């Protein structure tokens, strides 16, 4: 195949034409292959965390814990929720500039920020929660085991969050490099 043939093959290539109703279906977020699920997950997580925030003080004896710990727990939880929302919005808006090179550069910066913030927010929220649950509590072997389980879960969750954002960032980093090299 020479380049003329390539050009004519390109001009003739085309797939099955989609109907306007199919196209309209594709414009709805609930039908999106990934974002629909991500949105539901975000809403459920946020509702659960906000519900916890509104009842934790009474259920977990917030009055018996130091004020700074109450504030740390609330702020870290809000940071966690904020980061989740920011992550979702980034996935929702992958086009971030007037041309492809700028768009990739901006997206890469956002992903790097999200990577750092997701690790920091998961870690701080987890530590604040653990401190809150273990402070002023008589620890029995059973409670120690429970605490160890929670620490392990926290570690795994932080690691998974880190891995997810790192893999997204690496994908964009590779393409951004190719575009930067071509632009240089």
């Amino acid at each position: 195949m020479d380049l003329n043939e390539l050009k004519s093959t390109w001009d003739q290539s085309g797939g099955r034409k989609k109907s306007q109703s199919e196209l309209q279906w594709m414009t709805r977020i609930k039908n999106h292959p990934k974002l629909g699920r991500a949105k539901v997950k975000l809403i459920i997580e946020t509702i659960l965390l906000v519900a916890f925030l509104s009842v934790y003080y009474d259920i977990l004896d917030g009055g018996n814990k130091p004020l700074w710990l109450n504030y740390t727990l609330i702020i870290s939880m809000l940071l966690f929720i904020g980061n989740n929302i920011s992550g979702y919005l980034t996935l929702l808006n992958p086009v971030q500039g007037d041309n492809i090179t700028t768009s990739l550069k901006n997206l890469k910066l956002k992903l790097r920020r999200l990577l750092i913030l997701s690790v920091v927010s998961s870690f701080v929220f987890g530590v604040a929660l653990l401190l809150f649950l273990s402070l002023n509590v008589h620890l029995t072997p059973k409670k120690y085991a429970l605490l160890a389980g929670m620490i392990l879960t926290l570690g795994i969750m932080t690691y998974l969050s880190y891995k997810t954002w790192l893999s997204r960032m690496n994908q964009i980093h590779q393409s951004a490099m190719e575009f930067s090299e071509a632009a240089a």
Partner: protein
Amino acid sequence: MEKAFLKMVDEHQRIIYQVCRMYRDTREDQEDLFQEIVFQLWKSFPSFRNESKISTWMYRIALSTSIATFRKKSLPLDFHENIPEAFHPREVEDIPENEARMYEALRSLDTAERAIISLYLEDYSYREIAEITGFSENNVGVKINRIKTKLKSILN
């Protein structure tokens, strides 16, 4: 507004199809990307100001979306300098042989090269390609010559 949008995408959906075929290997991934591009076009449509051609705007969004959206990890590729005539494992059977061969060749280019050559094949000027990609016009010219040489060696 929705009617105008659907009419526009309907008329230009070949652009989306070609970009999907260039940036994704499997039919399933191509369909997912098609949907993602339509979704991103719909979101960006209110800010489309008619300063550029509709097709130019569509190309910019479609290419940016293809490159910036996250895909499942695929198995590592074995790169061959020449593509055997009858070996197109990722393409499905109902696609013409020449077309399958062309897309296999285009997918062996890097992401930036794919964007440039698709715009070139669509007869965009160097200036328009530079505007969409963010490269200088000189770079576009140099790149196109390199890509042509690369494609010749892959396809022959």
